[in-house]
Structures are given as C-alpha cells and as structure tokens.
C-alpha cells in the first residue's frame, strides 16, 4: 500500500484550558487519491481533527506524519472568507499565491479549472455567490498543487444547487489530479454518493472507520446509526 499523504497516530489534542481532550487516542490515515469522509455530531471533534492534520493545533501526545511538502496539504473552510482577503479581487488573489510560491500556471487557468468564468477575475469575494466564493477558495488551494485537500464542511452553508456544483468539482479534481480529499460533513447522504471510506467520530474518539457503503448499510455503533437515520438513508 502506498504511503499515506498524512497520518495521525494515537493523537491527543486538548484545547487551551479544557479539562477533557478534544481528540483522544485518534489514529487515521489519508491515502493518495482517496475520498475519505469524516462525520460526527457537533462537538465530536471533526474540525479539531482537520486542524490537527493541518498543524493548526499542536498534539498533546501522539504523532502526525505528513508525507508531502507542507504546502501540498491544503485546508478549505466552511466559510471561504477564512482563506480569502475581502479587499483582493479574485484574479489578484490567485496571482499572489502563484507568485509567492513561485508556481507555474495562471489565475485564468485556475478559474477555469474550478468552473468560474474568466470575467469573475475582476470581482471581489463579496461580489461572488456563496458557491462561487467556495470555488475560488478551492482554486486558491489548487494554486499550490496540493496532494491532498482537507475540507471542513465546505458545502454546509450552500444552497442545494451550489452544493452540487462544489461537490462535483471535488469529484472531478480527484479524478483529474489524483487528489486525496478528506471531507468533513455531517450529511451522510453526500457520503453515500461520493466517499470511499467513512470515519465516524464521537466525543473525540474514532468509533468507526471503513468502506463508506458498508458502514452506511450496516452501522455497528449508535453514533453512525443516528447519523444514518437523520440523513433519511
């Protein structure tokens, strides 16, 4: 089996001042080219996991191995403003990332790759729709030629139609670029359509992990069953 893009082993993460760790003894690997979904109820540690993988949060114990250059593991947030400068036009934002990291490529090509019209290069983030903004955030991540995307609920604030467009884009990028995608979502209906593997968190622990189709059909723990039921599957 190929080397994982990134891997947590027995990771414990504690938020400052918290009595209980947010992640407890968590081990998880993201393999090249796979679509891994991470689900769990609010407070189960999904976002903490993503932040730990992106080295935005330190581990109290355990290890994190990232087997690609650091900038080749990119984070995409639910709120695209988290990675976009509101005062910078779409095209300029992409040019800047390309320039700073001395990358080949052009803003126009990136916009086209995420399905945004060339004319949108002159728009500010607030002049884009929610779905367009999220695609711009993904284009920005693509500028760094990532091997993996860590996506923290990238579609949960979007309308059904924009949600569909962004998810289709992720599926295309994975096929075209061989990207590994770790998608945090609490919507198991999406997981059923596109994920290879599903990891379910509960209170900071990984309670179930395996092929998505199997887990959805036969959940073995209550946390997964509740999510399956809520998704109306």
């Amino acid at each position, binding site marked *: 089996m190929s080397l994982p893009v990134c891997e947590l082993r027995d990771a414990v993460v504690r938020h400052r001042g918290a009595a209980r760790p947010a992640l407890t003894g968590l081990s998880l690997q993201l393999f090249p080219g796979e679509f891994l979904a991470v689900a769990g109820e609010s407070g189960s540690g999904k976002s903490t996991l993503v932040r730990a993988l992106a080295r935005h949060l330190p581990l109290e114990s355990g290890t994190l191995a990232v087997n690609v250059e650091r900038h080749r593991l990119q984070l995409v947030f639910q709120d695209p403003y988290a990675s976009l400068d509101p005062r910078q036009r779409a095209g300029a934002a992409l040019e800047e990332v390309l320039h700073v990291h001395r990358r080949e490529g052009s803003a126009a090509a990136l916009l086209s790759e995420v399905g945004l019209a060339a004319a949108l290069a002159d728009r500010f983030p607030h002049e884009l729709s929610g779905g367009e903004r999220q695609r711009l955030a993904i284009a920005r991540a693509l500028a760094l030629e990532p091997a993996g995307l860590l996506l923290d609920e990238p579609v949960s604030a979007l309308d059904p139609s924009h949600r569909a467009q962004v998810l289709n884009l992720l*599926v295309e990028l994975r096929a075209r670029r061989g990207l590994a995608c770790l998608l945090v979502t609490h919507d198991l209906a999406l997981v059923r359509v596109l994920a290879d593997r599903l990891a379910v968190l509960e209170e900071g622990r990984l309670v179930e992990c395996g092929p998505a189709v199997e887990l959805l059909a036969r959940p073995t723990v209550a946390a997964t069953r509740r999510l399956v039921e809520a998704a109306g599957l």
Partner: protein
Amino acid sequence: MSPLLEIRGLSVSHARGARRFLAVEELDLVLAAGEVLAVVGESGCGKSTLLASIARLFADPRSRIESGSIRLAGGELVGLSEERLRLLRGSAIGFVFQDAQAALNPVLRVGAQIEEGRRSGSASTLELLARVGLPEPERVAASFPHQLSGGMRQRALVALALAGRPQLLLADEPTSALDPVLGREILDLLVGACRREGMGLVLVTHEIALALRYAQRVAVMYAGRIVEIARAQELGTHARHPYTAALLASDPARTPRGQRFRAIPGAAPAAGEPVTGCAFAPRCTLVREHCRHARPPLAGGSACFFSEEVRP
C-alpha cells in the same frame, strides 16, 4: 371557519441605495390552525422576507409591505401600529430563528427570559425547559445563553417561543446551523408542540427533504413568488413545476452512488433584476418561447404553463 393565517396579494420591497425592488410579489398563502407548512427555495427567493413580513420583523428597517393583506385569526396585521404588533410578537406569534445566540438576550439568564415571555396558563419555566429535552432545567434556567452549547441554546429558544403559547409559530431555518441529529430532534419538538397545542407552523428551509419530512403542505418559492404549492406527499412524488423537480433532483439523498450531483444550471435573477415572462425560464429544461414573454399564474397549485409535462 376562517384560516389561522391568510395572506392575500402581498408585495414586500427592499431598499438598495435610492432604489427599491420587490422581494415578495403578489403572494397568496393560507395556513390552518395546527397545520405545518414549509416554504422552500434557494437563498434570495424571498422566503425569509415573506416570514419576516408576517410580524414585520425585517432584517433591514427600510424594507416595507407595499400592498396586500395579512390576517391572523381574522385580524388584519398590515397597517397595525408598531406598538400593537409588539404585543402580538411573543404572544400570538412565536419565533424560532437560525441563530439562537442572536435571538436570546445575552445579559439575561435563560430562565428569566422564558419567565418574561410566559403567559398565564403556560407551563412553568422549568417544565418548558424539560419539555424541550433539556436534561437539567434548573441549571439551564440559571445559565446565560453563552454558557450553553449551540444545541442547548436552540432548545432554549424553542422553549421561549412556546412560553407565550402562540397561535402561530414562525421558524426561519431553525436547524440549518445544527448537525442533522440535533436538527431532527429540534424539528420533532417543534412539530410535536404544534400538533399538541393546535399551533400553526410556517417553516422556512432551503432543504426540500426536510420540508417533505415535516410539513403537511409545501410552498416552493422562486424570485419572490410561489411557483408550486401542494401536499408534501404529492409534491415529493409528482412535482408539477420544473423548479420543484430540479430542487428534488438536487437532493443528495436522491442521487445514486457514483453519479454526479444534479445542480440547477444558471442562477436565479438577481435582486431587482427586471423579469419578463416566467422567472425560471432561463434555467428551465421545458422552456418554450411563450414562457419568455408571458408570466404563468399560480393555477391549480403550479405556476407553469406546461405543468403536465414535468417529470421527476
């Protein structure tokens, strides 16, 4: 018997700079006591504006009702003074919004807020908190909103809405900030309370699957108008407007594994953009020349000239 809520010919405008545009146009809607009606559509379709206009709680104070009538239990709300409306809010009309943090008073303990909204004959504050599934009602009552988790705050907000024993409950995306397990519990609570107390509930959501699961009737809005209204079961299986069919197809739960998610091509007309003919025509798969010039009226539950040709 007159309906609980009766909206006729309602038009509502928003201001942008010096210009005004209609966010809700010539809208009719009727709700019976004890009925759960969902209003669905994409952002900007006017569903939240419609809900806000009922109690005149607009996000932007420059928004206003241009024409039409809104009757609650026979009494006209349009033209009512702000003072009279204030008396109705929280008593005859209850609210549950998406953002419980913003809806609760941050400097008042939860128990005191509910006590304040309670009407004679209502359950006690602790009983109300227990009824919405809060395990330690005493502790919650003594807490400030920021000391509670998101889910607990949303439950407290439901308790607050029920405290006034309203006849009509208005819920604007009450669960879209919550995970689906919690969201489902909150909606079970709201719908259960409506059944028990004979309240009417208008539920605004962008998730058509949620609307179909919880509402008896569903109204689909597009560009400020209702384009289809039907019993939930009927709408879910036999959509009679192409936009409804497209919304249903975009539901991930209806997407087969390994297939592309179905997006609706194009975008809704921007706010204030003039529309001739059917507003959905530029995105419609059934469009004919006629649709681009004539506006289809809402007739027999569907505002489409070719509703017989709509396929799921």
